[in-house]
């Protein structure tokens, strides 16, 4: 479903992603783990047509995102790591806009919006503009929005950041259900190893832009001679704390954090 070969992305001197290769099978729940600034989001951006790779090849369901942008965009849905709502629009309008952009027919749209907003407990607040929402509510709205259309591939970039355990549980239950009933392929990144352990069938660990290990959770444990994914992750990536590249995105995150308070 996703096939990546020798993919690299450089920004001038900085090599954000170095020569990575991996494959995700149809219907698989695939976790992409790595410390801050390891290249996870950059990879997702290249997979989702937002960024052109410096070199290497990507196939999404057999199509190259840099040449068949629109066809590829039809195949996936994404929940971004960073905010992506229009805060001047209401919760319902944000959902509606997404549904229209993704060509969800009107009747199905209304039905699903109601169901999802109820599921993520935003239905009562549907007429409020998103800027009035708390950080957790905005996050829930973004996730609900991600499920509005039923893509073949679902990208979840740190979807549970800033969510309470209840919403987190709701999210993973829903992801698993969609994976089982619709056969949706899921590509996720997270910092919470327990989540990866709970849902992922296969895992790739990326560090400093390169993939350092991949396999099933059991294989990773065996390879590192550890008993938990967290220990395996630390064994693979070391315990040094990473500094993320600053700049606009970091600025936006700070802004978003300030906003949440």
């Amino acid at each position, binding site marked *: 479903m996703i096939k990546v070969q020798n993919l690299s992305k450089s920004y001038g001197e900085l090599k954000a992603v170095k020569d990575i290769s991996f494959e995700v099978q149809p219907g698989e729940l695939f976790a992409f783990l790595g410390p801050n600034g390891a290249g996870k989001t950059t990879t997702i951006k290249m997979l989702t047509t937002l960024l052109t790779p410096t070199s290497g090849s990507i196939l999404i369901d057999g199509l190259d995102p840099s040449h068949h942008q*629109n066809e590829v965009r039809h195949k996936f849905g994404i929940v971004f790591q960073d905010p992506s709502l229009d805060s001047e629009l209401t919760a319902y309008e944000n959902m509606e806009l*997404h549904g229209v952009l993704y*060509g969800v027919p009107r009747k199905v749209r209304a039905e699903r919006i109601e169901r999802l907003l109820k599921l993520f407990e935003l239905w009562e607040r549907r007429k409020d503009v998103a800027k009035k929402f708390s950080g957790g509510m905005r996050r829930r709205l973004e996730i609900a929005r991600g499920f509005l259309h039923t893509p073949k591939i679902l990208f979840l970039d740190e979807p549970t950041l800033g969510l309470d355990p209840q919403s987190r549980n709701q999210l993973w239950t829903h992801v698993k259900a969609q994976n089982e009933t619709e056969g949706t392929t899921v590509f996720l990144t997270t910092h919470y190893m327990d989540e990866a352990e709970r849902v992922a069938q296969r895992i790739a660990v990326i560090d400093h832009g390169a993939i350092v290990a991949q396999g099933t959770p059991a294989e990773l444990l065996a390879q590192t001679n550890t008993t938990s994914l967290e220990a395996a992750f630390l064994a693979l990536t070391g315990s040094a704390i990473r500094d993320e590249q600053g700049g606009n995105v970091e600025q936006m995150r700070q802004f978003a954090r300030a906003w949440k308070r």
Partner: protein
Amino acid sequence: MKAIYILWLREMKRYFRSPAQIVAALGQPMLYMLALGFGLGPVFAKSGHGSYVQFLAPGVMGMTILFSGAFSGIGLVFDRQFGFLKETLVAPVPRIHVMIGRTLGGATVAMLQGALVLLACLIVGFRPASLAAVPAVLLTMALISIVFCAFGTAIGSRLENMQAFPLVMNFLMLPLFFLSGALYPLDGLPTALQAVTNVNPLSYGVDGLRATLIGVTHFGLPLDFGVLAAVAVVFLGLGAYSFSKIQL
């Protein structure tokens, strides 16, 4: 088509939801109208050009449309910074549709804002020559709006953050305004200024507004329309190209 509509609708909703901004955007044009219109009025009349308020009102409308249109195009930077742009860029919609929806939305906002300024000018004493010209006035306003909204989109697509905003304001927007025929007649200018005003699309926009509103023109209405339409096509192309090249 639905994508274009929903993105246009988004711009409308954002516009009508901030009445404070609508009123604030009337402040500057009205200040020009009152201070310059009445302040320079006597001098203008003495030089044999007639009423400055009559002359200035279309110029101030042009200014309003320029700023409002260009800013809604440049508003792309805000969507980039606050993240909403991503949502529209990964959607399975050709980018050109996203760009057209945004641009039409921004252009509609600019037209509404221009119409509000026209109403305000009527209140302070501006009198158009005839009501029959209303469709032609609207067409001129629409052309100016599209020109500068597409222009703004082309710039906004290339900016990565809001820090460049003052730069754009001081080195693009204000020169476009001051070096057009908005504030003064284009006859008998020094050669250098004449050359600059002749290549400024806003000169043709303001001239078109004057031609349709008060029946005074420098270039002639056909040339105004021709230039505006041609520039609109070029800027739309440029805007669409820049927009299609956005990387996040």
